[in-house]
């Protein structure tokens, strides 16, 4: 038993020396882990923000591109939920066509003509339309 104890003490000493060498080697990498973690965290955050953010350009393109040349855009207010347009045009049919185009696009859940006035002096219609995105 004494011989066993002697042998195992020798092996323990060997392990301790090995551990000291490993700790010294780890010390030589000081700062690497912190820098790697900082880059990794920032990359993760960047991807998260990039994926989580809501884009409006597609909706803006949809709203503006559908207006066409027959009606004149005067005012737009929009956010991620919906939009409000103020338009003018010579014919009521142009507004009907505009609404049909909006509905055909399958991006709106609701479209409402809020007001429609006919300006006799200018001979054109002033129409306000609200739309709600799906």
């Amino acid at each position, binding site marked *: 038993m004494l011989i066993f104890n002697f042998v195992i003490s020798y092996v323990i000493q060997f*392990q301790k020396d090995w551990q000291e060498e*490993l700790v010294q080697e780890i010390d030589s990498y000081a700062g690497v882990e912190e*820098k790697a973690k900082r880059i990794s965290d920032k990359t993760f955050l960047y991807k998260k923000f*990039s994926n989580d953010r809501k884009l409006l350009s597609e909706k803006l393109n949809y709203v503006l591109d559908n207006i066409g040349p027959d009606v004149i855009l*005067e*005012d737009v207010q929009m956010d991620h939920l919906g939009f409000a347009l103020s338009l003018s045009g010579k014919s009521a049919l142009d507004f009907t066509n505009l609404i049909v185009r909006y509905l055909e696009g399958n991006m709106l859940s609701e479209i409402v003509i809020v007001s429609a006035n006919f300006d006799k002096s200018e001979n054109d219609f002033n129409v306000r339309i609200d739309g709600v995105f799906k």
Partner: protein
Amino acid sequence: MKEKKEEIINFIKRTLSNEALSVRIYIVWGILTLLVFGIFGLYPVSKIFVSNVKLLDDLYTNNLKLEKKIEDLKSAKEKVDIVGEDADILDNFLPDEFLAQNYLVDFSLLAGEAGYALDGVKFEEVEGSEVVVSLNLSGKGDLKYFVKSLEESRRLNEIIDIKYSVRDREDSVNIGVKSFIVGEK
């Protein structure tokens, strides 16, 4: 008294001269010695041996973990060396803190590219990782291009709302933009 003493000594001599009996005495003596010294000697040595084995096992396990850690650190160092100064670019796209002048330059450049003049910028308070900025623009620019440029900018932006009025000479645009920073965790 003397006779009694001689009688006891003679009895012991007679007993030990009997080989069969003395062998039994020696065997019992040997077994007793083995048991007594075995318990008082072997037990503590065995205990030390067991605790040494446990210590050795812990040391070996820890050393293996340290070796793995070194491998991970080596790999991390290689990757960090590859990334090198690109990390600074990432810092630029997702800054740790909000620096208004950087955003002002960005927005001004993007507005100019889209054909607008940046008339006014209002920075709201930083909330966590978000900064809300209000942009006032004027000119006959390309609104769709401007909004697309803002959203495709490497510095992350999210358009909150847009107010766009078409005028004869120059249009008026007001855009709410949410920009992202690392901010407080």
